């Protein structure tokens, strides 16, 4: 029965600094016995302990100072930084996981290969997330500790942030995140097919002779440049997430990226040796069409693709700049 009182006191004082434990223990014990009648029953004791409140709350009241890992003053900044840093960490670790997975030698079936790449990507992402959490929390804990030593009210008018200029330039977070996910998933599938399984894409003739579509010599360079393009796309997306709105510099980066990927595509599509040298010949044998006819059909298809890509690139660049110039004009 008295056991309850001892346990209650222990639950309070174990949360307090060692120097004050003994004294508070004695004081609390005296107070509790004062509140009890001569020969207390368990009910009496229980009631008194409930009156005193939970040991955790009582211990907090005995601690005069408020103590935080991250105090309410910094909590918003903490959450904000946590979001941005974890997005960046997750992205970086996902990309490194992907590249590792893609570069690993293929010894299994295509399906298993894809699954293992996805699994390693998610594992890396998870690790990145925890890393970000640990680092951001540590940094804010440090800021909190440093702040305890300086005056809390000091601030300068010059520290105030600039007002955001125009809402029209806002970049939707959700859209950007979707962009990143789709970009990554499709690019990775594309890169994988081109780097590991391109020898499966081609033409099986009636005589069961296989001719690949792609010229492996050119394809290697293309895949390499495509990875560079994917990485810059991811950089751009991360920047968009961080900035949250279009600035001239961001628009310049975005335009350069558009032009680069446009140039990349056009350059390789128009390379005469992009297609395997024997491919047209192989189709010609079965279909009865001449090699020249097939080649000219192929060229027409390429032309159509180039026209579509050109139009979309021009549209995307010009709408972006239109938006920015309009907003700047309004701002004046």
């Amino acid at each position, binding site marked *: 029965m008295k056991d309850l009182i001892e346990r209650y006191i222990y639950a309070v004082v174990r949360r307090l600094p060692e120097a004050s434990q003994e004294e508070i223990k004695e004081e609390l014990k005296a*107070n509790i016995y004062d509140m009890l009648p001569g020969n207390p029953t368990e009910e009496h004791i229980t009631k008194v302990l409930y009156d005193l409140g939970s040991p955790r709350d009582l211990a907090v009241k005995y601690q005069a100072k408020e103590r935080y890992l991250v105090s309410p003053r910094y909590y918003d900044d903490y959450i904000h930084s946590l979001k941005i840093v974890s997005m960046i960490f997750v992205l970086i670790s996902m990309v490194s996981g992907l590249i590792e997975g893609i570069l690993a030698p293929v010894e299994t079936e295509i399906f298993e290969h894809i699954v293992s790449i996805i699994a390693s990507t998610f594992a890396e992402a998870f690790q990145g997330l925890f890393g970000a959490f640990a680092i951001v929390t540590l940094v804010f804990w440090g800021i909190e500790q440093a702040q305890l030593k300086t005056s809390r009210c000091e601030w300068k008018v010059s520290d105030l942030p600039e007002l955001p200029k125009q809402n029209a330039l806002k970049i939707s977070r959700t859209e950007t995140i979707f962009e990143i996910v789709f970009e990554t998933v499709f690019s990775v599938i594309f890169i994988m097919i081109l780097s590991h399984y391109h020898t499966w894409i081609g033409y099986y003739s009636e005589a069961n002779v296989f001719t690949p579509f792609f010229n492996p010599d050119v394809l290697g360079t293309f895949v390499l440049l495509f990875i560079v393009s994917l990485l810059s796309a991811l950089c751009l997306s991360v920047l968009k997430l961080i900035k949250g709105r279009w600035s001239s510099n961001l628009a310049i980066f975005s335009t350069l990226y558009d032009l680069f990927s446009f140039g990349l595509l056009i350059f390789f599509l128009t390379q005469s040796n992009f297609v395997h040298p024997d491919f047209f010949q192989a189709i010609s044998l079965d279909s009865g069409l001449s090699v020249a006819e097939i080649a000219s059909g192929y060229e027409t298809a390429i032309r159509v693709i180039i026209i579509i890509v050109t139009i979309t690139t021009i549209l995307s660049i010009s709408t972006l700049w239109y938006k920015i110039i309009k907003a700047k004009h309004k701002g004046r």
Partner: protein
Amino acid sequence: MIDQSILNNLIVELRRGTQILAVLSSLSKTQYGYSLLQTLESKNILIEAGTLYPLLRRLESQGLLTSQWDTSESRPRKYYQLSDDGMELFVTLKKEWKNIQAEINAALE
């Protein structure tokens, strides 16, 4: 219909500052924790035991109260009393309370 929990919160906030004043007013003569609780109760000042005991310790650490253990009885008890600083502060605080009362009453007219 007013929200009871909001009302109760506001009442607690309103009383919080005045509790210290009531505690100081009862400590011109020595008291131990529970006797002080009873004194306050008899004056209809409601303060929880779990609030009062830590408060006494804090006031002591701020130099407003002095304390000493009485071990002559079967159970040792810790007695608290206003220090000289505490007494001076209490007088000033009481004046401030009267000012506040007058100001708020005037505002509520």
